[in-house]
């Protein structure tokens, strides 16, 4: 008899279990392609063991999504006001359907990733395209539709899309409150399992221990709750993911893990500059300087083909992208000339741009690069907390950690290593005139 439940060993979750329908998605071309997409692009040049792939991350996200679903829909954990807001939660058929959709969406959420993941997405796709749009196209493709329709009962492909990319990326689709919550389970700012898995997994593979947190405890305390009140004339009632009081410390640990992983790994200056060199290489190496959005071509493009081209170009000065490829392969990356700091931000929030533009004139545009990433999400970083007395409190009101967590922002200027010494002396001389308060144009 064919196995109904399949088990895959995993260094983070020990076992990931999937049923035969999920196995069909696992065996599909779009999903198998993820075996060849590094989770952290060229980060292994800085943290050598960070060679893990989107494949195992996606399995981990599915595993965690199922766990969170079971916890937050457990009958005794859902209050009457939440039942009234989300009627689906009291319908067993509906729950079974949506649990399947959620796990499938979690499995597919990264299928649209380009080679080397985020490293080159914005500049190297045509306008209006990103990996989420490619994910959507894949989920709706005839190949995947045949899988959704072959299930009993079949899954609606657009339901999978909604939960896989969330309301931020599917702006043309209307989400019910229930669908908002389910999408939040995967891609949410606060408790999205995509983030939980990548923090744990990236921490494990980079060897940066700060990324760990007690996700078992956190997941067990997750609840669907009304938002915290603002005491200014009637609280809003639309539900969101929050935690029981006993989970606040685990939630703090998650936020701290995120902070440390960003400072130590994702925003590490050398990692950032390798991404820039990779982007420069790809812009020269790809046909027309862009990745294709045709699905067949997308499915044929992985890190492997790019690596072959990169090594080839690094060896041969006549090949497009040679210089950028050589810098990656020979570890001759650009060095940090300028890095954002609070004093400069107080004068000019875009101080890096001022330094970059002047340095490009002084040392040549080919020798200077600017890396600016304004922070995303977490404007407030608040979420509802269910107190032991039944009240709903703001996590920020309860937690010194959350209210004092720094907001991260990247603003680097890099310069070619052979010009770095001169550039550093130049910046010492020019700094005061370049970074100053000026009228907003």
């Amino acid at each position: 008899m064919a196995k109904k439940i399949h088990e895959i060993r995993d260094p983070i979750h020990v076992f990931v279990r999937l049923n035969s329908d999920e196995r069909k998605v696992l065996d599909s071309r779009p999903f198998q392609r993820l075996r060849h997409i590094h989770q952290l692009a060229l980060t292994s040049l800085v943290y050598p063991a960070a060679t893990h792939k989107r494949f195992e991350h996606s399995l981990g996200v599915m595993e965690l999504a199922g766990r969170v679903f079971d916890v937050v829909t457990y009958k005794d954990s859902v209050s009457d006001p939440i039942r009234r807001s989300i009627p689906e939660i009291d319908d067993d058929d509906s729950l079974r359907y949506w649990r399947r959709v959620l796990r499938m969406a979690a499995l597919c959420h990264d299928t649209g990733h380009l080679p080397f993941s985020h490293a080159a997405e914005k500049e190297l796709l045509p306008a209006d395209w990103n990996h989420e749009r490619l994910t959507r196209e894949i989920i709706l493709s005839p190949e995947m539709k045949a899988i959704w329709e072959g299930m009993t009962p079949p899954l609606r492909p657009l339901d999978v899309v909604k939960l896989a990319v969330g309301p931020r990326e599917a702006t043309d689709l209307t989400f019910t409150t229930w669908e908002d919550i389910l999408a939040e389970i995967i891609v949410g700012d606060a408790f999205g399992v995509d983030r939980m898995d990548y923090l744990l997994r990236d921490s494990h593979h980079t060897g940066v221990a700060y990324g760990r947190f007690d996700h078992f405890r956190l997941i067990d305390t997750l609840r669907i709750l009304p938002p915290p009140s603002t005491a200014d004339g009637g609280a809003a009632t639309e539900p969101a993911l929050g935690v029981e009081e006993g989970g606040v410390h685990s939630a703090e640990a998650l936020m701290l893990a995120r902070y440390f992983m960003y400072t130590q790994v994702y925003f590490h200056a050398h990692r950032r500059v390798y991404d820039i060199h990779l982007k420069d290489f790809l812009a020269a190496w790809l046909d027309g300087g862009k990745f294709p959005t045709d699905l067949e071509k997308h499915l044929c493009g992985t890190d492997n083909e790019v690596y072959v081209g990169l090594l080839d170009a690094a060896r041969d000065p006549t090949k497009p992208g040679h210089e950028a490829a050589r810098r990656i392969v020979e570890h001759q990356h650009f060095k940090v000339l300028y890095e954002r700091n609070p004093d400069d931000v107080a004068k000019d929030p875009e101080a890096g741009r001022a330094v970059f533009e002047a340095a490009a004139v002084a040392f040549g545009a080919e020798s200077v690069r600017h890396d600016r990433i304004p922070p995303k999400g977490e404007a407030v970083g608040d979420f509802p907390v269910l107190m032991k007395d039944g009240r709903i409190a703001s996590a920020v009101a309860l937690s010194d950690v959350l209210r004092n967590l720094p907001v991260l922002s990247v603003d680097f200027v890099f310069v070619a290593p052979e010009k770095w010494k001169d550039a550093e002396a130049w910046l010492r001389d020019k700094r005061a005139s370049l970074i100053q308060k000026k009228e907003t144009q």
Partner: protein
Amino acid sequence: MNRLQRAAVLTALADELRKRGSWCGETHLQKTAYFLQELLGVALGYQFVLYKHGPYSFDLHDELTALRADQLLELRPQPYPYGPSLLPTAASADFRARSPRTLGACRRELDFTADKLADKGVAELERLATALFVTREMPDGDAEARARRINQLKPHVSLDEARAAVAAVDRISREAAAFAE
């Protein structure tokens, strides 16, 4: 508008709301920015979708976070159990003083928005902003049809609450039109 110009407008909006007694949490800024852009025509360039508590912009959400990183907004915790405020910093006053042209071009719109909405709580702001969203979605819809649509989109908003929100938004829209002339 570029990012720094938007920063000047958003911190000015927070400042005007606060001066008029608003709680000024993220929901307050999201909904008032929606009115400022969609009703008053201030070209902030945000895309709003129907999401948390009505129209919501993920780009604006990111921008508010960036303003914290830029020391222009600060998170001000409120007494337990209430949610926090996002308030303009002292540095933001200095920053706005360096943005006279940007702010001069939308000063009346900022004042109008703050005058009409600063005293509203999050629940009422959700209803009003959703009513404006639906009115823009159904420009020819009568008041009852729009109220029913609000109730359909946000079942926790009762039909009577939706009717009151539609009437209030129609009134504010008429005043905004007169003000624009």
